């Protein structure tokens, strides 16, 4: 593997890793702060992708679709938290798994009723529909670079939010010890709703951004869900920094594994997880 090829693969890893991060960040926050195992997280990703498909179809603009889709998913997250999830914070994990497993089916059925079972594609916006020529045979799609930029910005924003702002402090306090945080005057009820809505919106946003690259298809959420859990487990439950590190690590292992050890590609990520669990049972960054 020459240097040029290596650098391109590195770029691929980072880009894949950041997308995973976007997905896993919401999952780890919800898991860490509310203690909810949310199997339906992948469904929000799927819904995001379908919203992007529906809205770009109606308005012809992906940017507009992303804005509307994000607003809608925040509202959906808020509503779900108020109606369902807040009753499950103190229930056993099994109850939560049953609830969120059921939600997967409900969302898939809704998707089937609204948009059918077909595979759809979403067009790349015209101003991003070009490629940068890297080598004689390989070009890099501008949209992928654009996504790289957006994901980096979001990761940075999330990091700033959590580590530098007052809200972030409350979130961290809530993840560390929610009873104590409440005793110190943090409105934990509102905080929970906020974090949940944010988690849903991040997953949906990831779905909307990937829609033009991937196709939009039924059960697309279930596929990414497993990878999300791997990232959360490696990174340490509840840790956003851990999720970022783990996502990038998984991106690297997955990308280079596929190319260098194609026979073992499908298990390398899980080997990584097993190794991390062996030496750091609570993940790389336990909160």
């Amino acid at each position, binding site marked *: 593997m020459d240097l040029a090829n290596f650098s391109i693969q590195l770029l*691929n*890893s980072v880009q894949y890793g950041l997308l995973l991060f976007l997905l896993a960040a919401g999952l780890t926050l919800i898991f860490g702060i509310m203690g909810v195992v949310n199997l339906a997280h992948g469904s929000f990703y799927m819904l995001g992708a379908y919203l992007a498909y529906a809205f770009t179809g109606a308005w012809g603009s992906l940017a507009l679709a992303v804005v509307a889709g994000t607003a809608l998913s925040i509202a959906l997250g808020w509503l779900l938290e108020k109606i369902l999830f807040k009753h499950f914070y103190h229930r056993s994990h099994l109850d939560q798994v049953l609830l969120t497993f059921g939600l997967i089916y409900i969302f898939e059925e809704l998707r089937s009723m609204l948009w059918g079972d077909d595979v759809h594609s979403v067009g790349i916006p015209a101003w991003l529909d070009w490629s940068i020529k890297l080598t004689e045979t390989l070009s890099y799609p501008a949209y992928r670079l654009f996504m790289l930029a957006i994901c980096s910005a979001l990761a940075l924003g999330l990091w700033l939010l959590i580590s530098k702002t007052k809200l972030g402090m409350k979130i961290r306090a809530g993840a560390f010890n929610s009873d104590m945080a409440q005793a110190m005057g943090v409105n934990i009820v509102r905080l929970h709703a906020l974090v949940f809505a944010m988690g849903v919106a991040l997953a949906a946003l990831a779905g909307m951004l990937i829609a033009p690259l991937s196709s939009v298809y039924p059960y697309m959420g279930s596929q990414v869900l497993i990878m999300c859990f791997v990232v959360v487990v490696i990174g340490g439950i509840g840790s956003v920094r851990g999720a970022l590190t783990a996502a990038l690590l998984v991106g690297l292992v997955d990308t280079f594994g596929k190319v260098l050890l194609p026979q073992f590609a499908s298990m390398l990520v899980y080997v990584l997880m097993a190794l991390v669990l062996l030496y750091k049972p609570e993940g790389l960054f336990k909160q």
Partner: protein
Amino acid sequence: MTTRRLVLTRSAALLGAASSGLLLPAHAQSNKIRIGLMLPYTGTFAQLGQACDNGFRMALEEKGNKLGGRDIEYFKVDDESEPSKGVENASKLVQRDKVDVLVGTVHSGVQMGIHKVARETGVLCIIPNAGMHAATRALCAPNVFRTSFTNSQPTLALGKAMMAKGHKKAVWITWKYAAGDEAGEGFKDGYLAAGGTIVKELGLPFPNVEFQALLTEIASIKPDAVACFFSGGGAAKFIRDYAAAGLKGKIPLYGSGFLTEGLLDDELAPAAQGIMTTLHYSTSLATKRNDAFRLAYAKAFKMQPDVYAVQGYDAGQLLLQGAAAVKGDLSNKKALYSAMEAAVIDSPRGQWTMSKAHNPVQDMYLREVKGKENIVLGVAAKALSDSGAGCKLG
């Protein structure tokens, strides 16, 4: 106490049996031929299942809905493409509904379940799609017939076509799962026999669609051509990514026909132009037989047929021929099976016959994506047969 409970449960069981018809005399099942359709009517493969169903019914409808003079009755089970329920669903049709013939299915995993039941009970089974090798190879059975393909059959025809274009070094890429591996086996056999070299085999877990790393690898290898097996949503994404990575137009892309089947919409078509595939059918096939079929199908179902509809249609044609030979007496298995083995099917895809292992011996067409259609360029392999390795029939 125990005896009273026993009496209670037994009489309850008796009641249940009576109400479900188990205790009625066998002749009450009328003189109709009972056809079980076990196909996916919901889920990802719902459209494929419906197409097989449509095709099958259409074939029988054309002959007045009679098999060898006898009336027919349908029993439907939605298999949901759920392998874990395969045996259970197939048993339902065979044990409860007492079907004379089981037609199904699309998904290879579910087919394993059907196949098990077919081998154990000896019920006549016609496979309208699933291409898993075992059904017409090591685990072939006298009562199991296939009207579609084996997973390696379409890709087996690729090699010659690629070499004819001077593509001597190729990269093979697919999902690492049974169907992908079997398609890979077909490609390898055909391409190596034609004198080509496979410089690298790439794969990713099913149904992972993060192709970028592998496309980068392909670009750095710079093979003469790339051959692949993907289908459904993953195929659409592969086609898009291949074009977006700048490989389209530089390194020709070949594949099994399922790469482009049913996917060429306004969004995807531009990225798919020029892709060459091999398959046993194309809607664009310009024959009188196909035109007539398309017209009739469109009239009956208000949509265009696809390869799955043709396979279902041929399942119906095969059964018609078999039943005609035994005048509707499907219990005369020996005569029925030899008639089906000897059948020549006048299919919209072109005429085909049964191999000894009960898989179609059929022409594979070389097709190129132009506009929103798979245009037939010619026959890539005439009367192509699956090896049937390990099958002791015939």
